[in-house]
């Protein structure tokens, strides 16, 4: 009744569809990009519109070292996923740990910068438009880094317990897509905040 035999059956083996994890993550990235776009537009729209100081030129310092940390973590997670696929668990765990460390370093850098801005320059989210847009945009990105780091850490814990093998490489790839997205967003945020916005 529910089995529909067609008059022209196709070869079943040839029927292959994309992985739902990857498609789902791609959709999430698509949606998140739209959220970031709105925040980036707001940032660009409000450049130079603050009525009081401090201005970006006075207080912002370009975080080159921490940017290198975050961007290189994209490489480490890529190779970690490759090693997992080939079944080399030790190399996978080492690179995975390195990814988390690099991400953590970046987050630390953001923390240091915010601390300096708040305590030395008195710039908070309510000081002026620059403060509002800066903390919102950078904070939105940092919250994505935190979310990414939490998921990476869960995989690390399972990995250390010996529960992550080559059979999970598809899922690790999905996570690595998200991490690449977080890195790419940082390139945009970096350009907008530290290059165009100063």
């Amino acid at each position: 009744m529910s089995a529909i035999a067609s008059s022209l059956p196709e070869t079943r083996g040839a029927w292959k569809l994309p992985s739902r994890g990857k498609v789902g993550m791609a959709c999430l990235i698509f949606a998140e990009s739209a959220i970031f776009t709105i925040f980036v537009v707001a940032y660009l729209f409000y450049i130079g519109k603050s009525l009081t100081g401090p201005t970006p030129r006075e207080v912002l310092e370009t975080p080159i070292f921490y940017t290198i940390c975050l961007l290189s973590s994209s490489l480490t997670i890529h190779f970690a996923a490759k090693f997992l696929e080939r079944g080399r668990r030790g190399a996978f765990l080492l690179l995975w740990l390195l990814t988390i460390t690099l991400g953590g370093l970046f987050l630390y850098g953001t923390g240091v910068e915010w601390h300096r801005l708040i305590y030395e320059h008195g710039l908070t989210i309510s000081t002026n438009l620059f403060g509002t847009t800066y903390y919102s945009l950078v904070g939105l990105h940092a919250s994505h880094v935190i979310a990414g780091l939490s998921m990476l850490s869960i995989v690390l814990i399972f990995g250390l317990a010996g529960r992550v093998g080559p059979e999970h490489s598809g899922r690790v790839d999905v996570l690595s897509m998200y991490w690449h997205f977080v890195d790419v967003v940082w390139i945009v945020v970096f350009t907008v905040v530290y290059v165009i916005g100063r």
Partner: protein
Amino acid sequence: MSSDALTIQATEAAGQPWTQTLHGWVTTVDHKRLGVLYIAYALFFLVIGGIEATIIRIQLMYPHNNFVSPQVFNRMFTMHGTTMIFFVAMPVLFGFANYLVPLMIGARDMAFPRLNAFSFWLTAFGGLLLYFSFFGGNGLYGAGTAPDVGWWAYAPLASRAFSPGHSSDYWTISLLASGFGSIGTAINIIATIICMRCPGMKLSRMPLFAWLNLVMSGMVLLAITPLSAAQIMLLVDRYLGGHFFDTQAGGSATLWMHFFWIFGHPEVYVLIIPCFAFVSEIVPVFSRKPIFGYPVMVGATVCIAFVSLSVWAHHMFTIGMNAYANSFFTITTMVVGIPTGIKIFNWLGTMWGGKIQFKTPMLFCIGFLFQFLIAGLTGIMLSAAPFDWQLSGSYFVVAHFHYVIVGGILFALFGAFYYWYPKITGRMLNESLGKLHFWLFLIGFHLTFDLMHIPGLLGMPRRIYTYEPGRGWDTLNFLVTIGAFVQGVAILVFVANMIISYFKGAEAGNDPWDAWTLEWSVSSPPPEYNFAAIPTVASRRPLWDLKHPEDPDSRYE
């Protein structure tokens, strides 16, 4: 001993205890049950939103009426708009998509069943939060309960200074929660359609219903997210002292309007595209012809999706944009009419020369065709910036978008209810009650919304809680309210029909309409696993192939 055993068996035969049934529904991850939950939830809020509309209409029935206070009136139109868009239209369309997409593409469930349940409950809690504002919105300020800033919450109305207490926060957070729910469901629908199709179900063979819901979900990802982002900014402004929309600190009230309408206009298409999907399934079956121009329908839908993302500022002609922006948004808005017109002609082409059966689902679809056309025509009128300068913020606009939402979306939805109710419950809806529902609703709808254009043209503004007598609006407003009551009675007939037919309706069988898509190949209601064996399809109408092995569609592909 033996009698005990017999008793246990008897209880099992009578069904589970209600606690277990409830537990089953609350913890379900089955796409069909979640679909039904979405639909039931939306119908509940349809009644609430309808009551709010009735309160608005009673207040406006006579000049100088004192049925409700101005404050309550503001809350009513804010809650009516927010409820109808976010907690009726969105969930009911997601409900149908949830229920039908896996069945139509030959899958056993959605791609992410648990995400599906999570999304539903996010939406559900969003609605509860919005209505909890009636109790909790007051805060310590004595500042009024439910949100009263209009469904678009323009700055600076929604700022701390003008909206003290928590009413706007309930609005913000409930829309954030339901927005994340919508994004989750959209991701799920896309992943399901791309990754879960049964063998042979190429993209070019998918039912148009699946195609259109795929496009709708893509639009949700792009359209709901700006609203979520803007809501986060509003929360930053209200709670952390930010200045995004604070003009006194250099912020811009206009930016909020842009962000809101970048969401707001595509949202209309997010709602109407699934209704196109209903019509594209119902019209062919009751015309006894395959859909006319399938690839063009898909292309037109994708076209609508793209163009509709660049029309938003036609809601903002009166704020004083420059001539280039006005021209751009006028032209893009008019361009949307082209793919939409293509669709209307394709449905007419499907009906042309067909053996049309005027059953209730088809009646609602024909009503949809005519009314959506008129709604589109007033839309073209409003897209011309000078015309809009005259009538923006008047009842003409209210009449226009209710023509889209009630005359278009709701009519198509009712058609969908009559068409798929047998699949969902296993019983047919009563045909005479259905016809009564159709004609009553049609008369009420036209009485209300045809006439509503005229006070708008005569200058009656939106959102006023009362008006002076003798401006030529009195009789019209009275008749508009009478029309609202006729629609209310029609809805009662519909609800009665659903309840009576659930218990006493004729058995539907698998395929009561002699239709051609896969959901009609399984029992009504479908088993939990949908398909005992995953089907293989070779054409766009797999059931036609099955019923007519001598002349299958697949021969012509």
